[in-house]
Structures are given as structure tokens and as C-alpha cells.
């Protein structure tokens, strides 16, 4: 099982000091946080993508490429890459280059984006978000799998004789996750293609996540990618820890109360009861996280949000120390207990290369990645 962090990339005033980082400070802090994630032996760093203030990650592969150069092991991902407003050709190019630069330490989580005004900035319309997603993703898959692509669709100029350069590393595209906050369409899309399904798991109650994950698992099986238990599931999560749980609650409360998205709403206690947010001791985080398996099944990826709402960098780094030293080692061990052998790990570049080599020996296997160009 993989553990990591995902960031929204918000520039938010620290409500306890009134200090607001500059965009430069926030971007530098993000790099520091990603490097720290590797240092404390987490597996993944994922960045969001936003095209409006107060967010800074508008160019995720630039950020991830910079981080790739300063890390050795860390898997770089996104949360999410906008499949609607980005040109699929550019996504294919950017992530192919990132694959080559990082030695295959990259996968991608696709999302629609729910900020209406962003769509027209990129020549699109949020009302067509779903058919746009289906068309763009259909093209992206072909760009990563076919050497020469002839394509025409409704939302992009046609392609005649287009060849992606560079081709995916080792002829294997990055593994794709589909990130979902609310809608069943995303679960269906992920299941249809046999891709991973990532439930945001921050903004909604566990009952909702349970329904979505169950749906994805059923449909994954329906489309013939394996049994429901073998579907590739990721979950978000949100934690704040101190050795003493009362200290964690007292320290996090002003950040919670003023947080973008849900601040000035329910109390911290209500929100903790209604969503997977866990504020307390490392042991409480361990217990809560292990309970996710009760409704999501044996899953493959757990990402935590730790750096939002104006939390200062120093605090975030302390959170990563606690995650890396006290929480994740226990989670790794405990999640292995009782995990059926037929439940796979999340695909990595290495495992996909191995699978592709195996498939190359078989005739007519669907979706076999094309041979790399000589």
C-alpha cells in the first residue's frame, strides 16, 4: 500500500498570526514539503492544479519536474490534473517528459474541475464537462498508446498523423487515477478503463465514499478488469496531530474555523464526526485511518492533506515527521494484516513495464502499449 500527501496549493493567511505567504514563499514551501515527504519515507507527493488566486499550482509538471530533480524515490502525482480544460495533447507531452526526467516516478490523477469561470479561460464550457472529459480522456489514452494518431472530435481540432514526442518511457504510459468528490460518473469512467479510482474523502461523509467505492468496484468487475476486490482504490484524508490530542485540537481549531471551503460552518467536532477529518494523537490517526478499510475494502493508496488553511511550513514539516515516524510505519504493517493475496498493489512504472513485457508475448491483448520507437 502507498502512503503520501496531496496539496491544494492554496495561499491562505495564517489566522493565528495574520501572516500571508507570498506566492514565491508558498511555491518554495511546497518544494520543501515534497522533499520532506521523501525524507520521512512517504511514497507519494501529489499537487493540485488551479488557475486562479489564491492558488499557485497552475503548472503542475513544472513543479513536479523540479521536485523530481531533487528527490530519488518519491512518486510524483497530481490531485487533480484537469482533463477538461487542458489540451490532452499537452497533458500527454508534459507527463511523458516528466516520466523521462523522473525515471518513471510519475502517475496522474485526472479530474474535471468545478470552477465554472476557468473553463472559458481555456475555451471550454463547464456545462459540457462530462462529454468533454470522456472525449479528452479517450484521446489522451490513444496518444499514450498509439504511435500515429488520426483523431477527430467535438471539442478539439482534429489530429492527422500525430505522433507524441517523447513517447512514454519504456512504451508504458503513466498509471491513471480518476479523482472524485461527488459524482458517480467518475467511478464509471475509472471502471470502464480499468483505471484507479480516488475518492477525495475530505468533503463528504464516509457513507458517500462507501457508495462510490462500491460502485467503482462493481463496475470494474462488470467491465472485465478483474474482481471487485482487485479494483485500484485510493482515498484522501485530512489529519492534524500532536502527541497530546487536546493540544492538536486547540492548535488546529483556528485553522479549521477559518479554512477555505468549509470554514465558518460546522464545528470542528461535528466535522470530525461527519467526515474522515482526524485531529488528535498519532494513535487516533492510526485508528481512524485503519477504519477506512471497513467501508472502502482493501485499498491501494492513502493520501493525506496536511498543508492547507494557512498552516505554517514549520508546523507542516512537524506533521510530516509524525506521519513518517509514528503513523505510516504502523499503517503499513496493520494494513497488511488480513489483506488477501489477490488484492494487487497500485501499479507503478516498474510493474506496468513488467506487465507489458508479459503481454507482448500474448496475441491480441487489449490495450497493449505500443512498442517504443527505435
Amino acid at each position: 500500500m502507498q502512503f503520501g500527501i496531496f496539496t491544494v496549493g492554496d495561499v491562505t493567511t495564517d489566522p493565528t498570526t495574520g501572516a500571508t505567504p507570498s506566492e514565491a514563499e508558498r511555491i518554495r514551501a511546497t518544494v520543501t514539503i515534497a522533499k520532506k515527504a521523501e525524507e520521512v519515507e512517504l511514497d507519494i507527493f501529489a499537487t493540485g492544479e488551479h488557475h486562479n488566486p489564491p492558488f499557485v499550482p497552475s503548472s503542475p509538471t513544472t513543479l513536479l519536474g523540479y521536485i523530481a530533480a531533487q528527490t530519488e524515490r518519491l512518486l510524483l502525482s497530481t490531485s487533480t490534473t484537469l482533463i477538461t480544460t487542458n489540451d490532452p495533447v499537452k497533458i500527454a507531452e508534459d507527463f511523458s517528459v516528466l516520466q523521462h526526467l523522473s525515471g518513471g516516478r510519475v502517475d496522474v490523477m485526472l479530474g474535471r474541475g468545478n470552477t465554472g469561470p476557468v473553463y472559458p479561460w481555456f475555451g471550454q464550457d463547464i456545462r459540457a464537462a462530462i462529454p468533454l472529459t470522456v472525449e479528452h480522456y479517450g484521446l489522451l489514452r490513444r496518444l499514450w498508446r498509439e504511435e500515429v494518431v488520426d483523431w477527430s472530435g467535438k471539442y478539439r481540432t482534429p489530429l492527422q498523423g500525430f505522433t507524441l514526442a517523447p513517447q512514454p518511457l519504456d512504451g508504458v504510459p503513466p498509471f491513471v487515477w480518476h479523482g472524485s468528490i461527488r459524482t458517480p460518473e467518475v467511478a464509471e469512467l475509472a471502471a470502464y478503463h480499468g483505471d484507479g479510482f480516488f475518492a477525495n474523502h475530505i468533503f463528504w461523509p464516509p457513507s458517500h465514499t462507501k457508495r462510490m467505492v462500491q460502485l467503482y468496484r462493481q463496475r470494474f468487475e462488470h467491465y472485465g478488469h478483474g474482481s471487485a476486490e482487485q479494483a485500484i482504490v485510493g482515498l484522501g484524508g485530512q489529519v492534524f496531530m500532536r502527541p497530546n490530542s487536546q493540544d492538536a485540537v486547540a492548535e488546529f481549531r483556528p485553522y479549521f474555523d477559518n479554512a477555505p471551503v468549509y470554514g465558518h460552518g460546522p464545528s470542528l467536532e461535528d466535522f470530525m464526526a461527519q467526515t474522515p477529518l482526524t485531529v488528535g494523537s498519532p494513535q487516533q490517526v492510526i485508528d481512524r485511518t485503519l477504519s477506512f478499510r471497513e467501508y472502502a475494502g482493501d485499498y491501494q493508496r492513502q493520501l493525506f492533506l496536511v498543508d492547507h488553511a494557512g498552516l505554517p511550513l514549520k508546523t507542516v514539516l512537524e506533521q510530516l515527521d509524525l506521519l513518517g515516524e509514528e503513523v505510516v510505519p504502523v499503517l503499513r504493517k496493520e494494513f497488511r494484516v488480513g489483506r488477501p493475496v489477490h488484492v494487487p498493489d497500485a501499479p507503478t512504472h516498474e510493474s506496468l513495464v513488467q506487465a507489458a513485457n508479459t503481454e507482448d508475448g500474448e496475441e491480441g491483448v487489449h490495450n497493449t502499449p505500443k512498442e517504443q520507437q527505435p
Partner: protein
Amino acid sequence: MTKLAVISGGLREPSSTRLLADRIVAAVESALAQKAMAATSAVVELRPLGHAIIDTMLTGFANSELESAFETVADADGVIAVTPAFNASFSGLFKSFFDVLPAESLSEMPVLIAATGGTERHSLVLEHALRPMFSYLHAIVAPTGVYAATEDFGAQHGSVGLTERISKAAADFARLLQACGPRARRDVFTEELTEMEQLLAGATGPGNEDGNVED
């Protein structure tokens, strides 16, 4: 069995809005009984849900109490919605409940609209505020609503008039409920899923190599 959901936006205890709601429910049940139609009713009081309604606006999800209220409404065969008139419209709390009610909860739902107010001069709140909102939500709004002013609850002659108006509205609503019959709930979750399934089958399924999306 006809399931009635009664939404009362009254704020005080006792509330004239709830009082009107109760009288309407009794009259509707009586009118249904004359048609040999049995009915049950469940009341959704908005005041205790006030914080939850605003929290839902801020977070995007409802707590379990509000979810339960949503379920009561969506599962009903008919809705009786009663609000106090504030500033020439429904109360903000009343509107807010419908702002967070999941989409399509009221589609094809027979609805009887009613309101209370300080004076009868606000009675067009039914026609200018409630009816358009419920029409927008694709409800089937009964032609006769009930408006009750403070005077209706006081003066003798006023009470008699209100009783008649309630009886008339209840009889109309009972006929509407009878005509509509048991309501088939829309399942938006499954609808979205089916649409996506069809979209995927058409767009990227085997045999369609060019990846076109049908217009």
C-alpha cells in the same frame, strides 16, 4: 397509503405557521378519507435544522438529521409547504432548505403552498414567491394555496373564512393527489450513471476508432 411531507418554516413556539400546517394536514387527510385514500404525514420543522441547513450550504453535505429530512421529502407522495411571509417573500430559512434539498427531490411532486403573515396585504406571497419557486423545481403546485393573517387566528369571522379556505385548498389538493397517484421517485445517481455508461459506450467503445462524441 398516501405519504404526506409537511414542511413548516415557523420560527416561534407555538408557531402560527405550524398551526396552519397542522390544520391543513388534518383537512387534507379528511378530504383523502372521503376518497377512501389513507394517508400518513411526517412534519419537517425547519427551525431545529437551521444550523444544519447553513452548514450544508457551506460544506456541500448534509448532516444525518438534515439527510433524514431530505429523505422524508423525497419519499413523499405529496408535500404541504408552509412559510411565514418575511419582507414580501418566504423566509430565508424556508428558501434555504430548498436551496440545499438535493436536485429533483420535488420533480413531479404535488405541492400545496401556504403562508402566514401579519396582515392579509401579504397574501400574494403565495403567487409571487412560493408558486414560481416550486414551479422551477418541477413540482406540480396545487392551484389553491392558503394564506393566513394574524386576524384569521383571532376574530371569529376571520376563523370561519380561514376554515373554508383550508377546506377548499385541501379538497383541491386531495383531487390532485388522487390524480397523480403514488409518486415514482427519481434516482439521479442511477440516471447520471446510465448517461455516463451510454456516453462511454458511444465515445470510446470498441468499434468506434475515431473517438467521436455523438452530437
